[in-house]
């Protein structure tokens, strides 16, 4: 039985580890400025935890086989433990776990402590059951007022957001069902939700943040590759949660300016 346990535990360990190392399923290719740092830290964590995982499972398998009851009268070691060892592994795990954590703090700080740069492109993202809407402030650089009483979700677009057309600042606001952003510019995302909590998740951008009703959460990311990327909702928001997705189109600055100018022209 000891040998069977050894074989099974080792096999499970090696097969599980194989798929991680072979990267059969892995993080999607990153396309934002933050991706490299985050992925690097993921890999560091993965290597350290992988070593702990393999070492502990291999040791477990080996020990249960090695110290099986062989039926002879061999004495067991009558030991109640070893204080030195306890201290050694307490200190080592503390250094490993806390140290690992501290090395990632600068990435977290740049993602979450620092506000968006002054010249960033502002996009307001609003989640509602079960769609995302994107609003650009227009040439005046100001988002116009919205009013919950004016909301008409079924009408879509501006009406879905409840845009108050009486507010002069709202006249030039552009509302889109697709998020279009220029490459290599910082994007300031202002996250809102109308009804329940949603979560704005763009896997390739290494971006995720809940959109919470009652809060306007300011976040930022910088796309570095042009292309279309899927936006998902990552927080359970009701029966249509699985289909609450959208697209972010990362385009060249010229294409972005052209797109935005055309949408603004429609408003005049």
């Amino acid at each position, binding site marked *: 039985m000891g040998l069977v346990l050894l074989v099974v535990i080792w096999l499970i360990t090696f097969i599980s580890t194989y798929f991680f190392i072979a990267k059969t399923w892995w993080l999607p290719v990153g396309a934002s400025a933050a991706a490299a740092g985050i992925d690097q830290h993921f890999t560091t*964590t993965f290597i350290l935890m992988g070593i702990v995982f393999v070492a502990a499972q291999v040791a477990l398998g080996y020990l249960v086989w090695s110290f099986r009851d062989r039926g002879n009268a061999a004495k067991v070691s009558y*030991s109640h433990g070893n204080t030195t060892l306890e201290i050694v592994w307490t200190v080592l795990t503390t250094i490993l776990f806390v140290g*690992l954590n501290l090395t990632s703090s600068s990435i977290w700080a740049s993602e979450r402590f620092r506000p968006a740069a002054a010249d960033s492109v502002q996009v307001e993202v609003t989640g509602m059951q079960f769609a995302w809407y994107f609003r650009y402030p227009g040439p005046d650089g100001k988002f116009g007022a919205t009013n919950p009483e004016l*909301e008409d979700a079924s009408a879509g677009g501006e009406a879905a957001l409840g845009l108050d057309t009486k507010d002069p600042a709202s006249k030039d606001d552009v509302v889109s069902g697709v998020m279009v952003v220029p490459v290599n510019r910082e994007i300031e995302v202002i996250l809102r939700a109308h009804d329940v909590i949603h979560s704005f998740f763009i896997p390739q951008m290494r971006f*995720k943040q809940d959109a*919470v009703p009652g809060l306007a959460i300011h976040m930022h990311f910088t796309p570095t590759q042009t292309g279309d990327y899927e936006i998902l909702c990552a927080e359970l928001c*009701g029966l*249509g949660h699985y289909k609450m997705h959208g697209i972010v189109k990362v385009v060249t600055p010229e294409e972005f300016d052209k797109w935005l100018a055309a949408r603004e022209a429609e408003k005049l």
Partner: protein
Amino acid sequence: MAGGTGGGETITMSTHESAVQAHAHAAPQGFIRKWVFSLDHKVIGLQYYFLALVAVFVGMFLSLLMRIHLIWPTAALPLLGDIKPETYLTLVTMHGTIMVFFVLTTAPQGGFGNYFLPIQIGAPDMAFPVLNMLSFWTTFLGFIVMIAAFFVAGGAPLHGWTGYAPLSAVQSTGPGEGLGADLWIISIAIFCIGALMGALNFITTTLDMRAKGMTMMRMPLTVWAWFVTAILGLLAFGVLLSAGILLLMDRNLGTSFYVPLITVNGQLTGHKGGSPLLWQHLFWFFGHPEVYIAILPAMGLASQLLSVFSRKPIFGYKAMVYAILAIGFLGFMVWGHHMFMSGMSPYTAFAFSIMTMGIGVPSAIKTFNWLGTIWGGRIRFDSPMLFAIGFVSLFVSGGISGPFLAQPVLDIQLHDTYFVPGHFHLIMGVASIFGIFAATYYWFPKMFGRMMNESMARWHFWFSFIGTYAIFMPMHYLGMAGMPRRYSQMTEVGYLHDLIPLQKFITYAAFVTIAGQLIFLVNLFWSMFKGKKAVDNPWEATTLEWTTATPPPHDNFGGHTPVVHNGPYEYGVPGAPRDYVMQSDPEIEPAH
């Protein structure tokens, strides 16, 4: 803490005697008082156990339906018909809720804790037998109300076991958020009341009812685990109860604790000014300690069994006790790691992250000590030991994915993906279930006077152990690839199509693993009536439950009160007449 070591012994002794006399009660006659409204902690323990057994098969059946729907989303099922997206979310919600409350909290603590804590400390019963009976029947009522949620108009809620507001706080947010959601909250509130009564009883019993000589530092690690679990329960369930009452008020009385000014489908709800994050803070202030409520008893039991079946003292008894206490203490300071992406201040995320990595330290200490315990032992591979070894393996596997999720930088990608269910199922889900299985195989002879069938037990182990890994390890891959949790279909998002084969594999693995659980069910009931007669101490173990008759008499020790002279893990003692010295045997030389 009353008792302690050395000096506390006299106090413990006199407290114990008066407590025992105050709570003595005669053996009941008649079926109702003996088996239904029983005051006997052993019967109540069995009642909790069988409640959890019903609940675990309900919960498992729901997960089976989820797995079927995920890979065949359009398939109609016999009797149940189509599974709609909202039905899928109902399954998710009820699977999680039933498993966490009525299985993982109920069986290890209410079941085995009730049955064996008093016996292991040499007490004739719990400190408050009537309260004990009430706590079980309260829990039972909670279960009935929970199941009733399936059968009301609109069905059971779809807001997940975490019930995030405003989804859970406003009736118009989806089907199931009407009466079904009210029943869900009421059920949990009832459960909390039962759990609070149980926690008081466990704490009082451990402090006041220990036999002469059973100092705190001679308590088996199972008792330590149940004791600390009870303290966690006392502090956590009160908060959840209050949070639940506020949620009910938001839903039905027009208050706005959790709901700001929102519109659902363009309609104003009449709420304003509340905070959705308040619910999350209150919920996780309960929810994270709850993880330890589920797994601490299993950790205590694994320690116990590794020592018994390796025929060796536990490695580092004191370190194990301190680790349990440290986990219990730190467990209350890490709830924010569930909320890194919630909109909570990113500075607090940093603090919660450090504390969470810190809680990995006592967990690692326990793992080292488990390996240290089997090192140099003479291992007997009886079925309880197989599940204890399986527990250690799962604890390690589920544990090492913790530091990924504990770091907010990595949580950006992994939060609310399949990486999370992969992680928590391995550790607080199935590792705890392995604790329940190990406890069943280990204590069955004492509870029913018969042995369980060993070859069925082994088959059950292999199905469960390999099956668990086959189901939950691939979920980590899904999570890394960006598959969000709680998606009823994978057809809407382009890149999720590529992950369907992996989901299929998981579903097939679940079929086989679930089939393997039927072996356990058959073994359990077959052995109750047909199993080989058990002797009083079949595992040659040292703790007090093995000194008494099988099954134990009404007052546990048949009129005499045991006196304890030794620690709980004296195996392979040099110079002793046999390879173990029981706790009630004459005192051996102090160990080195």
